[in-house]
């Protein structure tokens, strides 16, 4: 490849770090598809035609089986699929992409499919518009037959990959080889996106919201990713690389050592013990959690097992393997598994479970679980069985009524007694907790707390629901204010009620990883914080320098202000007086932003 000119792009650095690597272009669909450069295009064409052949045989078998079982009329739709499979317009487009771009067949199939799918989606007639799903089904089959088990062979790829894509489904993290992926550049997304949160958890430098980036890069291009400054430089000059070599090496060095921790116990300067736990969602994060000295997993977000699964609802055995591994690895500490917390639109393709209009207020969390009882039962069985391998807790998300807790507990009891009866498997009582994230749960906390063994505060959702702000919506994202006086009142009330009823309560939101906010939480009386593993060392250091009485005073005073701005100003000043290090970037993280920001 001839050397290309240097080009600089800007975006927002959502996960810090600086790395030099090679671009690996990825398709933005659910499936992880990368654009590779194929030397022998003719061979690739043959591979594609072979996949068509195999797909055809499969569909024909399927069709005759369907004719036998449900009748000819229904099998005719497979006839349409067969014709789509052999469609001249589609296939010549795919072959053209392979030939012209020396692209891999998977990429060509995705690209060509997208063109057709978009054309169909623009049709007015609903029936014809819906046909895009037939195209997607057929493409899915071709892709499966192309790659066999459709997993990427990471073995052939170099070791310093920078993944670039339009958007990125967080479930893709589950299939990546982290020894090889060093950074992430996306055209979409921002600081609060789920992918950003996971990137920070994985300590993977990431820049998002980089406009019009993809047309200028190809797989194999050299790229300098400077997430500290939100900068992405394609084909950097040797001089440019020399300029930052020191920083690159320094960052590489921290990657190796900064998670190594001296002690496990955390306490304030005057000796009040504080428990710091890790929020995790991927098996990879377990190493980071252990290395950070987390006292257990305060929140395991189980949805990732579901997102990565083709049918949405994974088998009991698959779930057990993950939960059991967590329990074993974290011994003697506990692992709190949050049951599926996703909107139905993320999980199911069944039309009666779809409610994409306002998903955060729809059928999700415990509501979806109680609605899809079989899947819920399966998850509970896997969690109960895993509890034989270590200490496990179970947490129900999106609790808004006492009845939901009752129903959840009832199901746990039912599954437990069935396991005892059918398999003679005696499973001890496992602690049951509720996520406190809906304002109704805060207001009726006394009643709820009596029904559970412990409480988990999901600050992200709580803030979103209390302030009625969708933080994914750039027009209102500036109103997502963790230091809003109403949010502080809610948190203060939760702490008071929990102390009165002597219920353990844990803060499980991203926000507790902010040192300023952590001080506030401690001052309110919270002694258990759970956060992304990467943040634990910093927060621990802050806590160790903090006298408890000072934190209490700060919290008391912070609750007296009427604007977020004043809370922020007071909090950052008061904490900075106590903590000698530069915490400016953390102060900015919780600052009030103006409406125009983030556009």
């Amino acid at each position, binding site marked *: 490849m001839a050397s290309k000119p240097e080009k600089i792009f800007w975006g927002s650095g959502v996960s810090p770090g600086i790395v030099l690597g090679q671009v690996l272009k990825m398709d933005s669909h659910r499936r992880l598809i990368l654009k590779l450069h194929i030397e022998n295009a003719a061979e690739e064409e043959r591979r594609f035609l072979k996949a068509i052949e195999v797909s055809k045989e499969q569909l024909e078998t399927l069709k005759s089986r369907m004719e036998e079982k449900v009748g000819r009329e229904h099998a005719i739709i497979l006839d349409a699929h067969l014709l*789509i499979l052999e*469609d001249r317009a589609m296939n010549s487009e795919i072959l053209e992409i392979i030939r012209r771009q020396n692209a891999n067949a998977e990429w060509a199939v995705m690209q060509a499919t997208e063109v057709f799918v978009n054309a169909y989606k623009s049709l007015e007639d609903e029936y*014809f518009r819906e046909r895009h799903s037939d195209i997607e089904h057929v493409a899915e089959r071709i892709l499966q037959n192309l790659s066999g088990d459709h997993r990427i062979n990471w073995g052939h790829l170099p070791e310093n990959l920078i993944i670039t894509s339009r958007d990125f489904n967080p479930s893709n993290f589950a299939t990546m080889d982290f020894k090889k992926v060093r950074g992430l550049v996306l055209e979409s997304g921002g600081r609060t996106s789920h992918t950003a949160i996971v990137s920070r958890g994985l300590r993977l430098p990431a820049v998002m919201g980089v406009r019009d980036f993809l047309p200028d890069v190809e797989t194999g291009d050299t790229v300098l990713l400077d997430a500290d400054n939100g900068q992405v430089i394609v084909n950097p000059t040797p001089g440019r690389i020399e300029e930052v070599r020191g920083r690159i090496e320094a960052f590489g060095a921290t990657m190796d050592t900064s998670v190594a921790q001296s002690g496990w116990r955390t306490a304030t300067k005057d000796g009040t013990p504080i428990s710091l736990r890790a929020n995790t969602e991927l098996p990879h994060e377990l190493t980071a959690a252990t290395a950070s000295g987390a006292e257990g997993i305060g929140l395991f977000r189980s949805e990732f097992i579901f997102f990565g699964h083709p049918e949405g609802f994974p088998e009991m055995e698959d779930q057990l393997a993950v939960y059991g591994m967590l329990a074993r690895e974290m011994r003697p500490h506990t692992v709190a598994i949050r049951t599926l917390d996703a909107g139905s639109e993320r999980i199911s393709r069944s039309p009666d479970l779809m409610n994409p209009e306002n998903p955060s207020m729809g059928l999700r969390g415990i509501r979806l679980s109680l609605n899809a009882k079989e899947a819920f039962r399966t998850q509970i069985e896997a969690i109960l069985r895993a509890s034989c391998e270590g200490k496990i807790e179970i947490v129900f998300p999106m609790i808004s009524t006492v009845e939901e807790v009752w129903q959840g507990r009832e199901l746990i009891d039912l599954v437990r007694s069935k396991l005892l009866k059918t398999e003679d498997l005696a499973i001890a009582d496992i602690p049951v907790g509720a996520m406190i994230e809906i304002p109704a749960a805060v207001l009726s906390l006394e009643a709820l707390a009596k029904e559970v063994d412990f409480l988990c505060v999901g600050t992200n959702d709580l803030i979103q629901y209390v302030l009625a702000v969708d933080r994914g919506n750039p027009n209102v994202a500036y109103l997502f204010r963790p230091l809003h006086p109403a949010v502080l009142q809610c948190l203060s009330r939760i702490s008071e009620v929990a102390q009165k009823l002597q219920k353990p309560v844990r803060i499980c939101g991203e926000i507790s990883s902010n040192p300023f906010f952590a001080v506030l939480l401690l001052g309110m009386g919270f002694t258990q914080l759970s956060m992304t593993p990467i943040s634990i060392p910093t927060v621990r250091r802050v806590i160790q320098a903090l006298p408890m009485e000072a934190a209490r005073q700060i919290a008391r005073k912070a609750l007296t202000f009427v604007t977020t701005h004043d809370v922020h100003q007071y909090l950052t000043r008061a904490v900075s007086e106590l903590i000698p290090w530069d915490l400016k970037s953390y102060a900015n993280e919780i600052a009030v932003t103006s409406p125009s920001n983030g556009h």
Partner: protein
Amino acid sequence: MIRQSVLVTNKLGLHARAAAKLVRLTSRFSSDIYISRADANQQIDSKSILGILMLAASKGTRLVFSIEGEDEVEAGDSICRLFESKFGEEN
């Protein structure tokens, strides 16, 4: 080359099953067979199901076939018969 005008008269229009039948039929002929809606210019290959579905031809749509090749007359007749039979769906 011949041109043949047909009216979509079956209830469901040129939906997936009907389109499949049309592709199977036209693919039997060696002639090039293109379709366009009477109310639009874009011509699509009648041997491509994705093209046909994209016409979004509901009941009452008038279509024009342009057929060119050795068996064009025979192809035109067969196409007309298929449309007249309402794709064998409503008998």
